[in-house]
């Protein structure tokens, strides 16, 4: 009704209307407008005529029968070229999980080490304050027992009995190492995504 009053035409929607691409209120609006507007009716008729004209130029006969065509294509087919992925994680299935598992595992490790730091700091504090002079021994119950080589290496590395060293190691070096790991993971993921996109794009080139 508004269109009738203002005289707005619907030329810009006629192509979509002609192709059956309009839905809902837009479709209703165009239909209502077409009922009374001879100019838009004429424009629509032109579009219909054009489609009819284009349809009047049929596809010339194909020289090969369908089966012959398919057979010729089959003869020319190379061996299936499955483009290898630069990273195994691009393939479907377990590889995709790997992308998620890696950072999660890293986060888990950070949380574990952080918890160990907090617990050891707490025990050291208890010992320093004199609440319990043997508090650190809770953390290392087998301190006086014979220690196997792996344990001794791990303890030497963390050196939990020396709070300053342990804290320096855990609070400064480790985050940097993990940040490095994270950046490498991010870079690999980004490269992989680029490769995936490129492969998808080149499918048609």
């Amino acid at each position: 009704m508004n269109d009738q009053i203002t005289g707005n035409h619907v030329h810009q929607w006629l192509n979509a209307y002609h192709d059956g691409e309009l839905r809902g209120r837009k479709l209703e609006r165009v239909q209502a407008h077409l009922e009374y507007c001879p100019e838009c009716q004429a424009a629509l008729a032109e579009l219909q005529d054009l489609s009819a004209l284009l349809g009047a130029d049929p596809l010339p006969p194909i020289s090969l029968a369908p089966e012959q065509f398919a057979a010729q294509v089959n003869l020319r087919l190379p061996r299936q070229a499955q483009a290898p992925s630069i990273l195994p994680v691009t393939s479907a299935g377990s590889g995709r999980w790997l992308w998620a598992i890696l950072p999660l595992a890293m986060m888990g490790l950070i949380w574990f080490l952080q918890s160990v730091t907090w617990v050891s700091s707490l025990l050291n504090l208890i010992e320093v304050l004199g609440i319990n002079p043997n508090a650190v021994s809770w953390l290392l119950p087998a301190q006086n027992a014979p220690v196997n080589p792996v344990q001794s290496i791990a303890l030497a590395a963390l050196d939990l009995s020396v709070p300053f060293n342990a804290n320096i190691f855990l609070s400064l070096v480790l985050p940097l190492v993990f940040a490095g790991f994270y950046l490498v993971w991010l870079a690999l993921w980004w490269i992989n995504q680029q490769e995936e996109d490129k492969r998808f794009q080149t499918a048609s080139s």
Partner: protein
Amino acid sequence: MNEARYLIERKGNVHTTLVETQQAEDQLIEAAKQGNRDAFGELVLIHYQGVINVVYRMTGEMPLAEDVAQETFIRAWTKLHTYRPIGSFRSWVYRIANNAALDILRRRKEEVDIDDLPLAVPGNGVEQSVIHQQQAEVIRKAVLALPAASRSVLVLREYESLSYQEIADSLEIPLGTVMSRLAYARGKLKQELSRQLEVV
């Protein structure tokens, strides 16, 4: 009442058939991805006519269209592992066909000298009037004279009845661009044909 029920059932059956056809095609694609040539052959049989049609409308030459269509399917086979069922397989194959046709035209350094094109081979020939043939040739040349980008959209819509979304998927362009290119192509054609067909 019975007629309405019949129509609903019929519509339901058509829908079921379409779904089954789509599922069958998905299975063929999966099998072809695993290297099954027979499955790929079935896909060729389903789509070869549409692919030839697209290439013919883009290049204007039938023997060339058949060659390029074969090339299209060979490219599709080698790139099949990159196909993702986001859009339809038909859109994907038509994109390859369109690009293959454009490659050929580019290789020739010109977008086909439309005056040198051979006359279309008349279908079952005898009854077709000379005027009809001339008219068809004028239309074909007018389509070929369109810029490639608009022609691709027009061909996919007018000759293969793809929806706007399928055309957008196929040519990797936004929906709005599909609409503007189609409007441009039709406007240009209307202008050209009204001038040319008056002469004929």
